[in-house]
């Protein structure tokens, strides 16, 4: 369950971005995670509130963009979509392929909200 350690690293990074924004709360955190990153989005979502308690990220919505695994064939040059344990060229069948996408684990963006607006939103949710 290394997702907790990843959440702690993520929080530190967001707090760095949030510096000098004391009047704002973090409304939304946008992540990009590929299947080969070795992190489970579901676990990340459930672990984040544990580390974000009593921080400006406390009620932030985590938005995760799934990234497909794509490979480029080193033999025939074609590009295919692949599965994490079957990364073969769909055209010629070789395993000699280069990963184009699918191992990302990125903090893409942080959306801030004015603390007042944020609190209003919170109230309507309750």
């Amino acid at each position, binding site marked *: 369950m*290394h997702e907790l350690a990843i959440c702690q*690293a993520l929080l530190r990074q967001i707090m760095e971005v949030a510096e000098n924004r004391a009047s704002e709360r973090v409304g939304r955190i946008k992540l990009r995670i590929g299947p*080969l990153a*070795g992190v489970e989005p579901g676990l990340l979502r459930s672990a984040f509130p544990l580390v974000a308690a009593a921080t400006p990220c406390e009620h932030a919505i985590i938005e995760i963009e799934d990234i497909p695994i794509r490979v480029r064939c080193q033999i025939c040059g074609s590009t295919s979509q692949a599965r994490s*344990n079957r990364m073969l060229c769909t055209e010629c069948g070789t395993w000699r392929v*280069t990963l184009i*996408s699918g191992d990302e684990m990125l903090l893409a963006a*942080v*959306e801030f909200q*004015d603390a007042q607006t944020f609190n209003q939103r919170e109230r309507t949710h309750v």
Partner: protein
Amino acid sequence: MCDSCGCAAGTDHFRVAGSVVRPAESGEVKVLRAMLHENDYQARHNRAHFDAAHVLAVNLMSSPGAGKTSLLEATIRALKARLSVAVIEGDLETENDARRIRAAGAPAVQITTGNACHLDANMVHAALHTLDLRSIDVLFIENVGNLVCPAAFDLGQHRNVVLLSVTEGDDKPEKYPVMFRAADMMAITKLDLLAAVGDFDPALAKRHLRELANGAPVLEISARSGTGMEAWIDWLIHEAASRRRPGSAHHGAAHG
């Protein structure tokens, strides 16, 4: 992997500055930085330490009980007088493995992680400063036995060696693709038990590794009987020699 943004496509597709872009109007701040940016930074720092001292750093990963410590004991004995070896040991608890390494004749630093399921670059950094790197040729980092979590954390190693013991089943690369994809070498261990196990097919294990688009060398080893040890030692000597050549500080790590 691209150092700037953490994506797979390399560094030439687009450039992302290390600093954060702040658009004036919307409340959205684009960051586009690896979530483990902090660990990756520390790992690069560790790698710089290793490179400055011409040390080959090898991250050993496997499930618990695959024979990492036994392989290291046999390796230390086999390399004696040829290369000087030191070991950073990662375990949740106990100093047992470090004691075994010292008994085999190499300095060892034990990291006990408590409940953490993996080593990270900070832990390795603290440990490496207790070693005299200049007197070491090969530094093994024996990661916590776990086929999932350690794969996500770069430690600053040059090479990842993933062990697969014959008692575990030949489909492990198919079940744990993230870990086996990161391997620069797959060592099939406990080969002396192959006949007793009966249904482990080394060729099939290798095929599963290739299906992860991984062309890493595969060695079949028994630390107990000595089978395959020569090829393993040759590989280490070759890798260590490449660290001592000038201009050889390229990165071979999974997340480098």
